[in-house]
């Protein structure tokens, strides 16, 4: 801010966690994003279940559908953190109170929390309700979920920041996110498919490497580009 030229990490950390807690508490209070996510998961899973009453669906397809549900649920909830600021008119205040990078990381962690919550919910429901879907290699499954979540949150956050400044936010969000997330989606679907079979961790090494580098690359690029999106 004005005056200090030296970067103070403690200050920055306080800013970022401040942004995080602000959004977190606000979300707990109003539960807009949480409601959207939960309702979306419930409705899509119901439709999947209805269509599967008698049929035995191949595990591969089920692995794919898992991530379809996750992707679209994410699309229904992860843009809230930025769109809320625009709608409530608090953008200017946020500009004054925190540096762009603190805001970026604060909101990234909000979305990370939302994604972890979402994924846990979907996976638990999936395992409980869908018969054909059984995990054989838990290691691969958990690691794929974790790494996939970070990539998803990261890409979803920067795109959310972009569309918050546009006009048709709702429909634009999945349109912009899909091409960016496609590499991630293809890789986690592959990993999940591997996890349903008797595979060892090293079999999925390629997937893990891709997921890690994706998360790193997207987070780094988002961090560098965020201030161009944020400034007005």
């Amino acid at each position, binding site marked *: 801010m004005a005056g200090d030229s030296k970067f103070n990490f403690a200050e920055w950390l306080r800013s970022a966690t401040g942004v995080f807690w602000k959004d977190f508490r606000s979300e707990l209070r109003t539960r807009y994003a949480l409601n959207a996510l939960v309702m979306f998961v419930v409705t899509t899973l119901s439709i999947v279940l209805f269509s599967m009453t008698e049929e035995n669906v191949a595990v591969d397809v089920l692995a794919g559908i898992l991530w379809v549900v996750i992707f679209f649920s994410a699309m229904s909830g992860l843009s809230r953190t930025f769109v809320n600021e625009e709608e409530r008119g608090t953008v200017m205040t946020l500009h004054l109170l925190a540096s762009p990078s603190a805001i970026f990381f604060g909101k990234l962690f909000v979305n990370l929390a939302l994604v972890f919550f979402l994924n846990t919910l979907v996976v638990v429901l999936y395992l409980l309700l869908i018969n054909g879907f059984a995990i054989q290699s838990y290691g691969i499954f958990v690691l794929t979920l974790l790494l996939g979540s970070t990539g998803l949150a990261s890409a979803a956050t920067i795109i959310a920041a972009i569309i918050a400044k546009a006009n048709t936010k709702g429909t634009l969000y999945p349109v912009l996110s*899909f091409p960016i997330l*496609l590499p991630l989606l293809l890789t986690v679907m*592959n990993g999940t498919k591997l996890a349903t079979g008797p595979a060892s961790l090293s079999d999925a090494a390629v997937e893990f490497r891709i997921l890690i580098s994706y998360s790193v690359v997207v987070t780094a690029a988002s961090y560098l580009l965020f201030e161009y999106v944020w400034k007005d």
Partner: protein
Amino acid sequence: MEWWKIGVGIWLTAVFAVALSFPIVPEPKHWYEFPVIPGLEERARIIFFHVPVAWTTVVAFLVALWNGVKYLRTMDLEADAASSNSAGLGLLFAVLATVTGSIWARFSWGSFWNWDPRETSIFVLLLIYGAYFALRSAIESEERRARLSAVYAIIAGVTAPFFVFIMPRIMTGLHPGSRGDVQGSGPVVQFHMAPNMLLVFFAALIGFTVLFAWMMEIRLRTSRLELHFMNADSEQS
């Protein structure tokens, strides 16, 4: 009229004529004969059209990306005009590449679309272009539109290369049985082209790239004129 614009007319006419008239024979004995590629025969000629068009769409994307970065650094709206014009041309060439590619696929492999690596990557490129223009049409402020579409182009440019690494993985993962020639990437990478074919091929690449440069120049000049008349209007009123 600049010499290179006349030149590209003659150049590409020659390329097309050669691509579509040099006979394809099993044992080429003359410089004007192409060898037969087993499995392709006459259809091999599409290489001189389809691949350069696909190549041009990638060039167009890189130009759009480069100008996006340039805009973020200089805030010069001309860079943004270059970026969006290039993306527009890129979209045109991507559609052409997809259409010619799927026609080729129909006659070579049986169906119009197979989700093989090359097809999937051109599909992703189409999605990126579509998303880019959807974003641009959703922002009214000129400066904000330029800024946000530049950022999006960069994000897309950063994630797109990942496909190069996932593609082989996906193919082996999803296709347990091999399907005929699983030169999934298509014959372009696999077979070695005869020297005279290679020459014509590179001539086609160069020709299409120069054609793209001309189309870009026309669009940029048009944007500049439009800008000029818009300013003139506001000066008079």
